C-alpha cells in the first residue's frame, strides 16, 4: 500500500508548474538549498497576482517573498519553519497546497472516494441487472445459417 501511494504521489509530478521567474542573481549557491527554495516557492501563492506561485510570478512582491524564503533557508530554517513563517504572515491563503486538516479533509479525500464509490456503484448495478438473469446461451448455427451470415458480414463490415 505504501508503495502504491508513493507511486501515486510520483505520478503527481507529471503535470508541471511553469518555468520559474527566479532571476539569475537570486539563486543560492548551494544547489541543495536552492532546490528546497524552489519547491517551497512553488507552493506559495503570489498574493498580488491571480493564481500564480511566487516561483513563476514576475511581480515585485513575489521577488521579495522568494528572497525571504532563501534568506530563512540560509539562516538554517527547516522547510516547515519557512512555510509556517509565511502562513503566520499572510494566512492560509498563501498555501497553494492547503494543509490536510478537517477544513480540507473533503478536498483531499473526495477525488479517490468519488472514484471508488462510482466504480463500486456501477459494478453493483451491472451485476444486479445481469447477474440475476444469465444471458441467454447462443444456439449453434446451422451450416446454411453460417454461410449466410458470412455472406452478410462480408458485404457489411463491422461497425465500431
Amino acid at each position, binding site marked *: 500500500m505504501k508503495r502504491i501511494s508513493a*507511486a*501515486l*504521489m*510520483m*505520478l*503527481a*509530478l*507529471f*503535470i*508541471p*508548474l*511553469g*518555468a*520559474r*521567474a*527566479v*532571476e*539569475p*542573481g537570486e*539563486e543560492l549557491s548551494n544547489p541543495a538549498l536552492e532546490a528546497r527554495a524552489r519547491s517551497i516557492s*512553488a*507552493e506559495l*501563492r503570489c498574493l498580488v497576482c*491571480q*493564481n*500564480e*506561485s511566487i516561483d*513563476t510570478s*514576475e511581480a515585485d512582491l513575489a521577488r521579495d517573498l522568494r528572497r525571504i524564503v532563501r534568506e530563512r533557508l540560509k539562516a538554517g530554517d527547516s522547510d516547515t519553519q519557512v512555510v509556517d513563517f509565511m502562513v503566520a504572515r499572510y*494566512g*492560509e*491563503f*498563501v*498555501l*497553494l*497546497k*492547503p494543509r490536510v486538516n478537517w*477544513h*480540507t479533509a*473533503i*478536498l*483531499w479525500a*473526495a*477525488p*479517490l472516494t*468519488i*472514484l471508488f464509490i*462510482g*466504480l463500486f456503484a*456501477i*459494478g453493483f448495478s*451491472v*451485476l444486479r*441487472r*445481469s447477474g440475476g438473469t444469465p*444471458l441467454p446461451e447462443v444456439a449453434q448455427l446451422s451450416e446454411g445459417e453460417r454461410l449466410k451470415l458470412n455472406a452478410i458480414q462480408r458485404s457489411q*463490415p*463491422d*461497425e*465500431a
Partner: protein
Amino acid sequence: MARGIGRQVIVELGHFALVMALVAALIQTTIPLIGATRGEARWIAVSRPAALAQFAFVAASFLALIVAHVDSDFSVLNVVQNSHSAKPLIYRISGVWGNHEGSMILWLQILTLFGAGVALFGSQLRPAFQARVLAVMGALGVAFGLFILLTSNPFARVGEPPLDGLGLNPVLQDPGLAFHPPVLYTGYVGLAVSFAFAVAALMEGRVDAVWARWVRPWTLAAWIALTVGIAMGSWWAYYELGWGGWWAWDPVENASFVPWLVATALIHSVIVVERREALKTWTVLLAILAFSMSLLGTFLVRSGVLTSVHAFANDPARGVAILLILGIFIGGALALFAWRAPKLVQGGLFAMVSREGALIANNAILGACAAAVLLATLYPLIAQTLLGRTLSVGPQVFDFFFPPMIALALALLPIGVALPWKRGDFGAATQRLRYAAAAAIGIVVLTLAFVSANAWAVFFGLALAAWVAAGTITDWAVRTKLGTGSLKLTFARALGLPRATWGMVMAHLGVAIVTLGIVTDSTWKEEAALLFKPGQSIAALGYTLTLDKIEKNLPHENYTSTRATLRFVRDGRTVLVLHPERRFFPLQQTETTEAAITTTFFRDIYATLGEQRGEEWIVRVQWRPLVAFIWFGAMTMAFGGMLSLSDRRFRLGAPVRAKTRTAGAPAE
C-alpha cells in the same frame, strides 16, 4: 471620422434585432411546445421558422455590433470601453467578443446557429420531437436574450462620445484570441443541443437507438470544438503568457475542462445506447450534466466568483442573474429527470466483462475526474462560505489526484477496445494485447537505457502512452486482419472500415500522443535564467548563447517593442537565431512579453526577454522536449472526432431505422 447617418443607425437596428430575436425565441419556446403536447401540427410547424428567425435576428444584431467596433463608433459604451481607433482591424473585430457583452452575444449567436442547424437538418426527426428540442433551445435563447438586454446590453450609448476608446487588454491582442473564444463557445453551446435532446426525450418519456443516433453527431461536434478550443487556449497560454506553462489548473481552464470530461464520457455512453439500447438513464443524465457544466463554466468566468487570470470578465452583479438561469435550467432539467427517468425502459443485457462494461468504467472514471476537478475548483468558495476559511487550491492539489485517476482510464482503454459487446472473455482480450504490453515494457526499457529520469512514475506514464498506442494499433490490426492475407487485402479491409472506427483509432492515438507529450515535457524540460550584457556569450542548454543586440523602442501600430537577437551556437556554427520581445502598450501602460519559439519534431526552444537590470538583461531559455505533441495529440483527437462525425450512418440519418425500431421504444 465622418460617417453617414446610415451607419450611425446600425447600432439602433442591432439593438432592435436583438429584441426581435427575443420575441422569436419566446414564440419558439411556447407555441411549438403547446402544439407538441396537444398534437396540433400547425402549432408544431411554428418551431422551425421561429428558430431560423431567431438566428437571423441575432446574426443581424451581432453584425451591427461588429460594424460599430470596426467603425470605432465611440458613441457606443461597449466600443469606448473595449476598443481604440489605433487598434489593428483584426483586433477591432475579435475585440467584439473579447469583452463580457460581446461574448454573450457570441454565445447567443452560436446557440441560435445550432438551433437553426437542428431546424434545417433535423427534418427527418419526428416533428413533435423536433419541436420539443427547439423549444428547449428557444427557452435558453429567451434566458440569455433577457440577460443580455437587461444586464449586459452592448448597444448602450454614451451621452458624450469621447474622442477615443480605452482599448483592449494587450494580452488579448493576439491572433489566438480571434479564434479561441468562438471555438470554445461552439463547444460549450453545442452541448445545449445534447441537453435539449435529453430534456425533450424526458418529456416524451422515450430514449432509443434512434435518439442516440441523433444525439451522437451533435455531441461529437460540440466535443470536437471543446477539444480544439481547450488545446488552443493551452497553446495560447504557452506562447503568450511568457512562462511556457500550458496548463495551470486555473478556474477558467477547469471551467472548460470539466464539460470536456463529461462530454467525453457522453460520446462514449451514447454509443452504448445506439448499439445496445442500454445505459439510457445514465446517458440522459450525462447529457444534462455536460451542458450544466458549460453553464456553470460560463457562470464561473462571467461572475468572477473565483479569482483567475481571466479576470477581465469579472462582475458579481451579473453573477446573480446567471445563477438564476443556472438554477432554472439545471434544476428544472434534473427535476424532470428525477420524475421521468424511472419510466425509461432499459434495453440490452450485458455482462460485467464486455464492451459495455468497459465503457461504463470509462464513464465512471471520467465522471469522477470531472466531479473531483469541479470540487477542487469550487473548494475555496465552499471553504469561505461554509467553513469561514480563506484558502487556496493550487495545481499541487490537482496534480495529487488527477494523474492517478486518468491513468486508470488509460490502463483500461486498450482492454475495453479489445472486448466484444455483450459478454467478453478477459483472457482472450489480454491475450490479444500481449504485443501491446510488450511494446509498453520495451519502450520503458529503451528509454531507461538512453535517457536518465529520476522518478519511476515517469516510466509508468510512458508505458501508459505506449500501451494505449499499441493497444489501439492492435485493435486496428485485428479489424483489418493484418497478417492473415496479402497486404492488398488488408489495405482493402482498412478502407472498408467505417469512418467511426477510424475516428476511434485516431482519437485514441491522440490520447497516447498527448500523454507522451505531457510526460516527456514535464520530466525532461530544461530551463535557464541568464543575465546578459549585449554582446556577451554564456553556455546554457548545450549551446553557446550570445545576446547579439537589443533594439529598443521599435515602433508598431499600437505598441513599441524591445527586441533581442539571441544567437544559439553549437560546435562553432550558428544553429538558431531567436528574437524574443517585450512590448509596451502606451495606452494601457502595460508591458507584455512575446516569447520566441522554434519548433521541430522533437523539441521546442523557447526564449523570453525579461527585465533590464542595469546594463544587463534577463533572458530565459527553455528546452521543451516533445511539448508540441500535447497540442498535436489534441488535434489528432479532434480529427478522430471529425472522421467519426463524417461516418455514413450519421449523414444518412436515422429515419430508415426509425421505422423498424420505434416499436420497442415507448416508455409507458
